[in-house]
């Protein structure tokens, strides 16, 4: 092991292997892993299919990203993607993903999770990841119910929803994920539905290209415990899929917030986007400033300087 410890600043790429080796184009087949264990008809299949399509379309090699999730039906996601992944604990995928993002600038980190996972038990982390604007793409697969634990009220369940924990109907005010994300400081906030794949792909692409914390709330029906939840947003079921008006200014936070307040089924598309610097960048700049005085010194020499002050 070398004693000349050099460590790339978070902004600097980690040395990547064999950049010149010619590679076969990445196919959906390469990216497919275990067969999903979801119920037939579950909306999560579409999200997975579109994710794989995105990776293929953008030709993101398997060593350039990772898929992270917490616990829930939707959070089984990483097992179904043939690439680096982590299936973490309930509600904590965002801090875990932040650890990757902040220590490995060369990786794109995707987080997939449920409404319960990301907005209830993980609600605090959602707020702080947003405000710190950590470079992560986060897809909330919102079915307005707890799927894995079999039909309890979720933080996005509408008032009146009858679940096993609210047999006469939910009474608590639900969270509006888009408003929550805007208020907390996320810098790319969009809403999609698994019933409109092309639209979802478009937003996923925008999220990947965005330098910051990008959040997509994607309605994803739980056919087992909340069937028909999103019919009102599905033209094939007699509903309306309303795109955000073309004249909406995505840089206008207040307008975005107001638009997000529309009654269900509300609008779909990109509500808000801002160029606020990421924590990744701010930390890299901090490092640059801190390292100015130590230019050319090896790690052990910097440590020795500290020891000299302790004599």
């Amino acid at each position, binding site marked *: 092991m070398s*004693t000349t410890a050099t460590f790339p600043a978070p902004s600097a790429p980690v040395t990547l292997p064999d950049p010149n080796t010619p590679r076969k184009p990445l196919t959906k087949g390469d990216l497919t892993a275990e067969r999903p264990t979801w119920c037939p008809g579950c909306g999560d299949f579409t999200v997975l299919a579109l994710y794989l399509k995105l990776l293929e379309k953008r030709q993101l090699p398997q060593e350039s990203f990772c898929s992270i999730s917490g616990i829930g039906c939707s959070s089984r996601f990483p097992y179904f993607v043939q690439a*680096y992944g982590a299936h973490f604990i309930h509600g904590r995928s965002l801090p875990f993903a932040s650890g990757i993002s902040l220590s*490995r600038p060369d990786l794109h980190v995707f987080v997939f999770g449920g409404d319960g996972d990301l907005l209830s038990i993980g609600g605090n982390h959602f707020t702080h990841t947003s405000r710190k604007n950590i470079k992560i793409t986060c897809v909330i697969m919102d079915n307005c119910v707890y799927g894995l634990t079999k039909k309890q009220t979720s933080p996005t369940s509408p008032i009146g929803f009858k679940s096993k924990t609210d047999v006469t109907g939910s009474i608590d005010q639900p969270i509006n994920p888009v408003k929550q994300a805007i208020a907390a400081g996320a810098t790319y906030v969009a809403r999609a539905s698994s019933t409109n794949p092309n639209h979802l792909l478009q937003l996923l692409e925008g999220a990947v290209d965005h330098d910051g914390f990008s959040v997509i709330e994607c309605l994803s029906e739980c056919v087992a415990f909340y069937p028909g939840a999103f019919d009102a947003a599905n033209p094939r079921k007699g509903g309306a899929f309303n795109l955000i008006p073309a004249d909406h200014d995505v840089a206008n936070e207040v307008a975005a917030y107001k638009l997000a307040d529309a009654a269900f089924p509300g609008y779909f598309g990109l509500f808000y986007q801002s160029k606020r610097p990421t924590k990744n960048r701010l*930390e890299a700049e901090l490092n640059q400033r*801190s*390292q100015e005085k130590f230019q050319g010194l090896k790690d052990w020499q910097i440590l020795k300087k500290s020891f000299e002050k302790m004599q």
Partner: protein
Amino acid sequence: MQTIEKVISMSEATTLAAPALGGAKGASAVPEAIIRLAGNSQDGIQAIGGFLARLAGRSEQEVMTFMSIPSTISGGPSVFQVRISTGEVLSAGDEADLLVAFYQHSYVEHLRSLKKGGIVIYDKDQVEPNPEWEKDYRHVGVGITSLTVEAIGGTGRDKGKNLFVLGLLARMHDLNTAKLNELIKGRFGGRDAGVLDNALAAFNAGYGYSLEGAVETFRFSASAPKSRRQVVMNGNEAVAYGLIAAGVRFGTAYPITPWSDIMEILRRELPKYGGTYVQCEDEIAAICMALGGSFAGRVAVTGTSGPGFSLKTEALGWGVMAEMPLVIIDVQRGGPSTGLPTQVEQSDLNIAVYGSHGDAPRIVLAPASVEDAFYTAIEAVNLARAYSVPVIVLTDQAIGSRIEAFEEPDSEKICQDLTPDLTPVASHKLYDLSAPDGITHRRSPGTRILDGRYPVATGLEHDEYGHPTGSPKLRMDMQAKRRKKLQALVAKLPVPTVHGPAKGKVLLVGWGSSQGPIREAVDRARAAGTELSALHVRYLNPLPPGLGEILDRFERIFVVELNDEGLYGYGQLASLLRSRYCNPRIQGINKTEGLTFKVKEILDRLNEKMTRLSNLPA
């Protein structure tokens, strides 16, 4: 019983030679001095205590400090004790040779911590001495407040009294004023020249004040020259710099006393090395983010004190299950709940060893001293890497806050580079069951795997690629894998060595910061002719080899630890050892009042226990 009598008589004797009092002109040579400064926390007594400690370090002396600070921010009574010696220092000392009392309450509270015949310097402007006590302790009144005001102006409530006292002490102990001046300049030589001028003026006033006739002066006898320069730091600093030397470049935490110092240092220092330290929204986020960093190829560190450790335990289990290297520092304080937030306890052993649901084997280490804390941090990082497992380092408030001098570590030799290796590999089974001793190492994201099969790090029971399994056989094999790794580690650990005779009547067992006072207790008893031995347990999980055999060689074993005796009469390490070795001769000496063990206290408690045992019907 002869053993007991001797121990009693010895525990009442004073420690090393108290400074000779009276008549002698010139400086009397002393091997050591224990100086206790008692005032309020805003008087800056920690600062002068720190100066004395650093000066000792520069003068090749051994030093150890003890301090107590109130848990309220607005201040309150505070003490700082410093023991400077030309020989080995094992504890901050039971009784002081010299007490400086800034206020009446300092005088009343702390006079009894002075040796009989010891000197108390009290502020004449604040303290009314008790004539009763004047018989047993040598009283010297100095107008500390008024003389400081005279030297630098202000109201006397302002800063400066501490430097006046430092000057006084420097004169009394013939300290190296050139070096002290350097230290004062280093500390106060900021942008405002007036601050430094005032500091030096106060110091000089103290130094120039004549104690002639009231107290004689002392001089430390020469100490053995050290081969390397000494560094002086507290245990929290030692942990932080140890982690940096180990190559840790990513860490996360949430503030909590007494851990916060470490995260503050890392936040300041890591960017210099291109690393990152993140203050998280809570302790749960902190361990999760650290695990993310570890998954990403770093060896990450998170740390906390008791309440935060409780919050981290679910994610800790994930670290064990997913086999992620991770270092968790727990600077223990008094619990449960918010407990004694600024005081010492060793009551997180159980949660460190067992905390988290399910069976989750992990490594637990506890450093014995400040120097050991530095090297333990490095060892923890390397164990985490070698065994792909979370490693918990249990320090405590006492080690964290006390200052010691030790040989400057050889930076060039010890600094490690832990940049992740992203060289492509042909294939990768994250949880390969055929690996010798079950020890596997993760490849980090960013590494191309040529056969196209990528692993998932997971907390679900899994197959070799990290995919969930319901197979009972795989479940059992994976449990065995996680267990076998640590069983394999046992064989590599050093057999602990006994301090004192290798067998005999009584063995004191300790861990963490109690090592010093326990050793000193043994040395004191043995110097008085009493047979006594001590054993320090540094590796708490898994326990080192040969420990059971050592215990077998003693008639009585007392585990001396700062935690409660529990429902069944045994403290946390005692319970662990009893369950591990089925040795019924293991007993405990416990306390939880928030302070470290004093040497005399250990011997007194031992005596009590022995007396009770000898009175039992045979």
